[in-house]
């Protein structure tokens, strides 16, 4: 695949801007997204190759616009619904409930 993820040698992405004393995570939701990798992997819901390929299937503009752990979130949503472990309707319902309660 030569999708947008294949970034080596491409121009125009700007300065690197390393962050001094960077924390391991930048938000609580990032912690949950990271840990869900182990949760879903341990339960056999996905494997590393499926995970990688799901990230590579992101729409190019979305891939570049979103942060690293947003790629992971997209991947869980895509793989778990594709596999029928959860449905988009269940996810949308839960999201609406939480939004209502927030």
């Amino acid at each position, binding site marked *: 695949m030569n999708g947008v*993820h*294949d*970034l*080596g*040698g*491409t*121009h125009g*992405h*700007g*300065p*690197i*801007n*390393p*962050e001094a004393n*960077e924390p*391991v*995570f*930048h*938000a*609580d*939701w990032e*912690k*949950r*997204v*990271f*840990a*869900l990798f*182990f*949760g*879903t992997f*341990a*339960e056999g*819901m996905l494997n*590393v*190759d499926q995970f*990688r390929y799901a*990230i590579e299937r992101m729409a190019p503009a979305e891939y*570049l616009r979103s*942060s*690293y752990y*947003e790629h992971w*979130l997209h991947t*869980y*949503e895509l793989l*778990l619904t594709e596999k029928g*472990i*959860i449905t988009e309707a*269940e*996810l949308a319902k*839960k*999201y609406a409930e*939480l*939004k209502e309660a*927030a």
Partner: protein
Amino acid sequence: MTSDSADVALRVKALESLLVEKKLVDPKALDAVVELYETKIGPHNGAKVIAKAWTDPDYKKRLLENGTAAIAELGFSGVQGEDMLVVENTPDVHNMVVCTLCSCYPWPTLGLPPVWFKAAPYRSRAVIDPRGVLEEFGVTVPAEKEVRVWDSNAELRYLVLPERPPGTEDMSEEELAALVTRDSMIGTGLAKAA
């Protein structure tokens, strides 16, 4: 928090809640993973490997011949460190590591990668302008010194063995480990001066 990140946080909460309700994941197990990577697994592990290599020539030989096994001797094995290659910086060669395709990184020795390692600017440019990238990290490599860039992949992860700083002959392994920075093991930095 912006509305976008609030939305992302809510999507994450929805996903986790649903999986917990279906008894597919245990939230306490997720807590334990987070704690592990926030406290136990990080570049302080890799620094011990480097300090030992600086002080024990036999260990250094094993480390360069079979990085995975030599690192396992110190107990730093596991997820995303299953196959390791250690590359040595010398007066003639500077090594640096990138993952152009995503974010492959040796978790057991370095912990989780910093944001810049996973982001487009570093991934795109490390392979076509490594010296320019190093300048952005404040590292100037003399023109006569070769720069080697290693592109990580899903199977093989790299760890740079930085040059031991001068004037450290009398330092203990523990003191030396304190000079080994995360960036010096990625190759975007050098070990701290004594």
